[in-house]
Each structure stands twice: as structure tokens, then as C-alpha cells.
């Protein structure tokens, strides 16, 4: 199990940041990802492996017009 934006979410071995974004259908382009507080840049989404127990923050940066 991992945390995604403070809520429990099932983890599976080999899960990358990209997998997580796809599973959660986080399609908004303008986001910030942090894993255990560490910033993950977009180039690393495919290779960054999320570990069981990680705390993931996916901040959507939109505050409306």
C-alpha cells in the first residue's frame, strides 16, 4: 500500500510514477510529483520506481480563471 495525496492506494511491484499517473487517470499536464518529499521531474516518470509504503504527492496546479 502507498499513500497518494494522503489516501491509501494499492501498490504493485515495478510500479513507476508513470504507471501511477495512468492508473489514477491524472491526465492534467501541469502537475508536480513528489515521492517522500523528493521532486520527480517529468523525464523520470517512466523510470522512477515507487516502493511499497511510499508517500506520493501529485499536485495539480490549477486554480481556475
Amino acid at each position, binding site marked *: 500500500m502507498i499513500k497518494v*495525496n494522503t489516501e491509501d492506494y494499492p501498490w504493485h511491484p515495478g510500479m513507476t510514477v508513470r504507471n501511477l499517473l495512468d492508473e489514477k487517470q491524472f*491526465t492534467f499536464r*501541469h502537475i508536480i510529483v513528489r515521492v517522500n518529499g523528493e521532486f520527480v521531474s517529468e523525464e523520470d516518470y517512466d523510470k522512477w520506481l515507487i516502493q511499497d509504503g511510499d508517500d506520493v504527492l501529485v499536485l495539480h496546479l490549477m*486554480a481556475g*480563471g
Partner: protein
Amino acid sequence: MGTIIKDYSYTPAKIKRGYSGKSLYINLSDLRIEQKEITEFMKEKFTGGKGFDLWYLWHAVTPETRWDSPENEIVMSVGPLGGITQYAGTGKTLLCSISPLTDIPIDSNVGGYFGPLLKFSGWDAFELQGKSEKEILIFIDGNNGRIQIEEAEEYPEDTHLLAEELTKKYAENEDDMVNVSVVCSGSGAKHSYMGMLNFSFYDPRRKVCRFKQAARGGLGTILHDKKVKALVVKYRGVKPNLNDAADISTINKVGVKYHKEVHDLDHKQNKMRQIGTANTIMIMSQYDLLPTRNFQTGGDPEAVKISPEVFINEWLTQGLHDGCWYGCTMSCAKCADHFLITTGPYAGQRVTVDGPEYECAAGLGANLGVFDPQAILEENFYCDTYGIDLISFATCTAFIMECYQRGQITREQMGGLDLRFGNSQAVLELMHQISRGEGFGRIAGLGIRKLKKIFVEEFGADPKLLQDIGMEVKGLEYSEYAHKESLAQQGGFAMATKGPQHDEAWLIFMDMVNKQIPTFEDKANALYYFPMFRTWFGLVGLCKLPWNDLVPADNYKTDSPAKVPEHVQNYVDIFNAVTGKHIDKEELILQSERVYQFQRVFSVRMGKGERKDDYPPYRSLGPVSREEYLSRQELYDKQLRELQKLDPETMDLDEKIAATRRYREDQYEQLMDAVYRRRGWTENGIPTPERLKAIGMDLPELLEVIEPKL
């Protein structure tokens, strides 16, 4: 040319540090034209823009004043930063009046050239009071210091014709057209309470008048009732430092930095230059936020037919003049050129359609079940040229459609119009009927609150159902975001001072997706900060979009990325550089709060602005119908289990809907308590004398209003 019935000369005041120091007053009943001083008190307490508007309006009206009372005013002001050309989004005008939809002060912001040109003509604010006997237009010549009132019966009514004719009339030649700006409404404003005002700016590349709208709350209806067909200003000579800034080099520096961000980052972020605000249509649908068929659901597989790509590839012209004031590199004002109209009085003609903005595609599209870009553009054109607020029209028509779908009203009661979801031809016919003041169009534009009464009293509809599905608060229709899963946004809409428009707060991602504001106190803090911060744009003459529709590349490193701290600092720096003052970001919030609390007290004075006025329809909070519950059954069942410790397996559908409703209504009550505390209001929503004192707004006239309510 009509007869000139008043000719007035004045010496245009020179602008000093962002203010001309003068405001213009015109009384239409006796054709009186006067100048007033902008006092230091006004600048100190109200800053400018909406602040000045509300202050003048307060003194013009009484608690008994209604939208069509002669003493009601339309007041407009551009604010001390309005008209600078070095930063993006610096030409916004704020307008206030007593609204026909809400009976309280409405405020509406708008781009286009009128406000800045009015200020350069010597006027920080403009009050329009009284009622004319004949249809007139008012022309302000800012270079020669002249105001003329002219009879205007002979001019066309609809905006695209009227603005073009007046622009040509007052410009000396083609090059001079950019120096003329027109404010007008259209035939739809005559027969509805949702008439809006178009503000023109001439597009020299397309050679047409383009428009931005002061849309909300029926300002066009009021202008029409005053028998003013148009306001025209002409000022030649816009240049970078007409505001007499105290420190022009800082403004230049901050401006260059921002323009570089636009150049480097916009195509990677929201693509405002390519598509404008409609960039979010698909995102809203994917995140369950696109209001669909009267906010019943938050998206639809068909939304892809009205995606940004469809508009970009098939309809919108790229790379032309798309800023609504000089210097706006964000340039989000898109349009479709040579668009062929297929219905109504302009069928067969090719026109330029300004838009579609997000609200248009969402409201006139998904919320009406219309997933046809061509139909949306035609609806957009007619709303604009008829002078109808497309947000109120869309939300109101979606309500009518659902009433029809649920058998609450019949086709016969709608004069034969088959207003099913998705029937764009019927929607267009309804617009034409509103414009002509015929058939169902005579009542359809009165707004949801009045329609609920008519449908119940005359058509025998179910009042409870209509209360649940009529998306209005205080009489104003909701703007186009589905928000059932964001408690903070439910409050952001229903507790907004003028009614449910998202310009006070858009917290959906922070709340629902990012989970950054989990507690009532967190939500209340957001519902304090964001409305206060956002109010400030309307005090100084700025557009909000450049604040957060683009963010610096390293914004993610900041403590509060949603606030975009670097851009907030830009605003502080520009304010100080123009005015010579020394505010910081805390003082900026204080400037806003003074006006925010003033407006709340103003609403209390007019009979609204208490707790009873801040309740949303249940459709805003949760699933009204069985179909809505079933559309997200998994989520709602999970919430019953986790939040209420109930077992959905043992409950039938109606029991689950009722339990969900009890819980959500209770959550909303708790949110209200927290927000009222944070804003310094009593449990009944009245600003306390202590709070007013703390922000320097314990003015005797305000205390007199609130004291009987404490």
C-alpha cells in the same frame, strides 16, 4: 446621425501615479453631467475599480432600490494599474449595479479598451444614473475634453452591427479605429434579466470589432432600461507611461520577465495563446468537473467532440491579434473568422465569433447536452450579439431542459419548443425568441429563481425538486463547473458575495484531487485567502488569468504553489511602482478585505447577505436523482462505508441517497461555521464590528447596517 441633446466640455485631468483624481457622473433623467473628486479617503479605503464602484453605488441607492429604479446606477472603474502596457492583463474594467437577478450589488469584470481609454480621457470612474426618455448614446472624446449625448433610435440594436457602425462613425479613418471603444448590449437584453454588456476593441488585422463581456448579473438589462443604446469613448495616444508611474523601470523589468515566461512556458503549460480558456474542456471532463445536462454528471464520452483540438484545428484562427488590451502576451482572446451563421436574423452571413471561452463550450455545450462545435459557436455568436450572458442563459436553459426531461413542464407550456438535452436548434430558437420577446422567450430569460416560481405556481411543478435542481444562489446562476465532490468549492460558490461565480475561489483541484485542504479550518483558510486575493484584481484593473494560468518554471519549489508567490510579488512590485506606495503582500490582502467586507455589508443592507442566503441547491452538494447516484455508485457506496460507517449492501437506493444527503448537508453547515469564523462574521454571516475595526472599515454607515443584525 441623431440630434445632439447635450454637449459638455471639460478639461481632461492628468493622471498622477495611476489616478486621474476625477470621476464622471451623468444623470440620464435630467441630462446633468458633473465631475466629482476622487478623495484620499476613497483611495485609502477602496483602492479603485470595484471599490470605487461600490462606494458610489452605496450612496446612490437605498435598501428599497431595485434594478429598474431610476436611482440605481451602473458604475465602472478601471483601477490605478489599469492601462499600463508593460505587463499582461492590465486593461480590466469593473462594473457594479443592483442586479435584476439578485436585487443586491453585482460586480462584473471585462476586458476591451473602454476602461483604459476612459481613464486616459480623465476619468477614474463613471457613474450612470437616472433614466432617459428617449434612446440615447453617450460619446466621450478624451482628447478634446468633450461629452455628447445623442439621440440613438436609428442605430441597430445588435452588438456586432452597432459597434461597427459607431466605431466607423467616430474614427477619422481606418487607423483611428483602434482608438474607439464601444459599450453596448443587444436585443436580448430587452426581454431578459440576463442582458450583458459588450466592450469592444478594434482588431486591425481582421478589420472587425472584437468584444469582451461584462456578463454577469444583468448589466445589459439595466443599460437598456435606462434607454442607453451605447457608450462610446475615443482617445488617441496610448503609450507606455500614461499612468505617470513612480518607478517605470521596475514595471518594465517585471514585464519583460513575465513576457519571457509566456514565451518559454505557455506551450508547455496551458496553451493559452493557442486555444485560450477552452484548453480545459477535456481535463474538466476527465476529472468529472464538466457540468453535463444541468450538472447531473461531470463529463461525457462525447466531450471529445468539443475538445480544444477540434476548435484549434477546425475553427479558430491562430497567430492574430488576440490580446484584449495592449501588452497582453497571454493573448487568450481567440476567435473563429468567416463563420457561417445558419439560423435567425443573420442566417447566411459570415461573421467573426469571439470565443469560445471555456464557459461557453462547457455551458452552451456539455451542460445543454450539445456536443457539436459548430452549434456552440453559433450559440456563442448569438449570445454575444443579442447581449445575453451566456453563463446565466446556459445554466438556466439546462434547468429548463431537465424540468422538461423530468415531466415538470410540457412542450406546450414552452410554446412548442422541444427543449430536450442536445437539441441545439431548439436552444437557438429560444435565443431568437428572447431577442424578439416572443413565445417562451418572454419568460425564459428571467433567470432560474423566477422560473421556479412560474413553473410551480402556473405549471404545477414540484417545488422541492425544482429547488434541488435549479442551479442558482441569491438569484444568480452558477458558472460552469461541476463540483459535487469538492466541499470547499461548494462553499466557494454558495458563499460568494454576489452569487455563484468562480471568480472568488476555484479550489476544486486543491480540495478534491490534491487533498491539500482536508479539514474545515483548512478549507475556511482557503475560502478566506483566495476570495480576498482575487478581489484585488478587480480593485486595480488587472486580469486574473496571467496570475495562475501560467506559472514560473520553479513555482513547484515554493511553499504554496497554488498561490504562485512570484506572480503575487510581481503585483506588489507593480502596484508600488505605479502608485509610489509601499505595500507588501499582506497589505494587498487588507486592501481587498476592506472592499470584500464592504460588499457583504452592502448585500445585508439590500436584504441579502445572511446565512439563509448562502445555501446551495442540493445538486451542488450531491446526487439528487437515482441516475446520478447510480452513475457514481461505487464512490458513493464507499463514502457511506468509510465516512458514515453504514453498510450500503443493506440499504435500498433511496435510503442510500437520503443518507448521503444528510451527511453532505451537515458537512456544508460545518463548513459555513468555519468560513464565517475565519472571515470574521457572526454565525448568521454578518461581519462583526470588531472585524470591521481591525481592517479600518468601522465606518458609521456600515455599523448602522450591521448593528440591528447582531
